[in-house]
């Protein structure tokens, strides 16, 4: 109760404080915007980071869920916040990079946000039902060619990372699937297990349960190296499909204009926290791999992701606005 009271007093004062220098930072609670509802993967990653940052630095981190429109609502809000370092957001490539390309967001990933640091990532994986005749990447490509555009590919929604990974795969392998979008895994998995659709692409964490149980068979992951949880599953790179990386990444960002020393300060603390075995284990249990690195590296990743996905989306003709 005392902490809450202090936090509230500090919040009330916040309007008076205008600029903050890195030495005194932070003078008040830091708001971490989570652009997804409670309970999802992003929420877990954000809460782990908020808790660990708070424990290791003594900062008061206030996690705030601002869900909506695949993350666009929360990012748009954070992008417009005062650039004083007291509002940061846990962004994901899907909402920071892809939503603006699809026209689902009114912000620019490069101009409107200052990258702080990469937090974690999880690759996409292509799965089939356990009794599917498809066993390898070669089987899949041969079947797609034989079915001539009729092989059904389920995704958890139009314009999601999983859907775009599927589009990327089609372009690299020179095949065509019939895309069947679903609202999410809960709707898509019964159809996959019931044999009504043939393949499904999902992030590794949301398919892990079924893979471990043997209900789903992973064919390959969209990553440069094999996933620690799925050591026997090849990558599409190994199968000769270059540049087939499609991961979900999470990173901390702030609105543009945040003083550089504050960005550097948060980045240093973030990297410390990401080195802790307990943080790594907690992220691992959510299916994500702890990463870290400098804010410049994170900025470079965003800059390289924008043209990559713009091209995939253009080539695939994915449109969400009519």
């Amino acid at each position, binding site marked *: 109760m005392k902490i809450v009271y202090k936090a509230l007093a500090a919040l009330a004062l916040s309007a008076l404080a205008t600029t903050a220098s890195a030495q005194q930072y932070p003078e008040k609670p830091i708001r971490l915007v989570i652009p997804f509802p409670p309970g999802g993967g992003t929420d877990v990653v954000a809460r782990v980071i908020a808790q660990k940052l708070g424990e290791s630095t003594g900062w008061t981190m206030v996690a705030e869920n*601002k869900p909506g429109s695949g993350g666009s609502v929360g990012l748009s809000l954070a992008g417009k916040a005062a650039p004083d370092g007291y509002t940061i957001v846990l962004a994901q490539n899907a909402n920071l990079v892809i939503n603006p390309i699809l026209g689902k967001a*009114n912000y620019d990933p490069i101009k409107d946000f200052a990258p702080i640091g990469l937090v974690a990532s999880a690759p996409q994986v292509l799965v089939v039902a356990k009794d599917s005749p498809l066993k390898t990447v070669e089987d899949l490509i041969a079947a797609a060619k034989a079915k001539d555009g009729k092989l059904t590919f389920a995704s958890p929604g139009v314009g999601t990372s999983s859907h775009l990974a599927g589009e990327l795969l089609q372009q690299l392998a020179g095949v065509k699937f019939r895309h069947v979008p679903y609202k999410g895994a*809960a709707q898509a998995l*019964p*159809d996959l297990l019931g044999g*009504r659709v043939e393949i499904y692409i999902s992030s590794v964490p949301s398919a892990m349960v079924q893979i471990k*149980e043997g209900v789903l068979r992973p064919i390959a992951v969209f990553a440069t190296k094999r996933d620690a949880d799925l050591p026997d599953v090849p990558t599409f790179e190994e199968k000769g499909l270059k540049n087939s990386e499609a991961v979900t990444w999470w990173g901390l960002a702030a609105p543009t204009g945040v003083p550089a020393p504050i960005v550097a300060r948060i980045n240093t603390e973030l990297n410390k926290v990401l080195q802790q075995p307990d943080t790594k284990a907690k992220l691992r249990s959510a299916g994500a791999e702890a990463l870290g690195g400098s804010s410049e590296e994170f900025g470079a990743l965003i800059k390289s992701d924008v043209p990559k996905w713009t091209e995939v989306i253009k080539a695939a003709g994915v449109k969400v606005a009519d």
Partner: protein
Amino acid sequence: MEIIDHFVLGFGVALSLQNLAYCFLGVLLGTLIGVLPGVGPLVTISMLLPITFGLPPVSAVIMLSGIYYGAQYGGSTTAILVNLPGETSSAVTCLDGYQMARRGRAGAALAIAALSSFVAGCIGTLLIVALGVPLASWALRFGAEDYFALMVLGLVAASVLSHGDMVKALAMVVVGLLIGLVGTDVNSGVERYTFGLPELADGIGFTVLAVGIFAISEVVINLEQKEAREVFTRNVGGLMPRWEDLKASFLPTLRGTAIGSFFGILPGTGPSISSFSAYMLEKKLAKDPSRFGQGAIEGVAAPEAANNAAAQTAFIPTLTLGIPGSATMALILGALIMNGVQPGPTVMARNPELFWGVIASMFIGNALLVALNLPLVGLWVRLLSIPYRWLFPAIVMFCALGNYSLNNSAIDVYLCAAIGVLGYVLAKLKCPPAPLVLGYVLGPMMEENIRRALLLSEGDLSVFVKSPISLTFLSLSLLLLVSMALPAIRRGKARVDQEEEASAT
């Protein structure tokens, strides 16, 4: 008997002092947050999830499950007392529960809601034990065409929700269907009716709609007269249900349980559809359907049984297939995994202590809920003796805070105000609200599934009759239509005759 050994094992686990305490804590929290509109098990469980890491896995899952099914008990309380649905699944309970409260029978309604929930919860749990695995694989046979046919049956049945003017009820269903279309279209990704607001991209929330349509418009109706009028009768009957009430509720509770169990197993359908279906079935079966909407006790017993059964059987696909049917179930699944438990068809063999312990805790939890809720009835009923001029601003406060807490967004509060205005105007024009809410619930699933069915069948319309499940539902719909049309035609003719007579005199 193997099953007895399992139960001995399960109750051995669940009856340990620690697990009993967590079970009680879970159902208590569940009841409390169930009463608050907007605030549901989703936010509570996600908040408590980190705390459970320090607990043994069994205790953690027992507590989190308790919150989930406990919320279904609490949700009916405000629905009955002030027409404010505490959980999405209790919107249907408003229809007759609130009318009972206005007639001084709030106590009976609350008690019946608790008792029918208890019966349904226990039967639902038994179903998980006895038929969990076969039921889950049976649910996998439902394809897009079958879901579509099921929604058609729901819409046809919606006509029984009207009292009086059938055309108005149908028009309200269509308004609901249109409101349900707001948001991102699943099949194309296009945003519809969002007016460029990203906050609308995920659609208008059920809570926003139900609170606006039921609670806000009801408050305005109570305030519109120049003179203060009595909202609740002063003549409060007994707190507990009478013997006739129990007798009248017995079969509806069982039928509601059956319907709820069915929908709970189907991933993605949710408890709101099950409580609506149970209500419509009771009204269809009733000898005197006109009592519904006027405080019929069956109209409380059946939907409350249905949503509790659905909450319980929703554990079947989650535990046996690892497929969560709702966001809250996904959270419980996540809790299992983080606690080192791997759900799936072999969960019973691999983690017998956990599986049977949690199952046994559900029986205990449901019993605790009744023990907790029946004594609370008296307290709740006393709330109604608070002067209305204090009560209604508090109702408005719960609407505001509940809607805000959904997405931490003021847009939901503004939307609720707008829907309140629409709801009030429609209520004054004698347009029934329930068909609108049903249309909203069924519409998006209906469109999504017919388009998916045609995409998968390459545009072959015959899928709808080739699938035996779909064919059954469509035939039932047709039968229902014919059975309604025949008496309506006869009545219509009788009315024309009467009018002719009247104009002749």
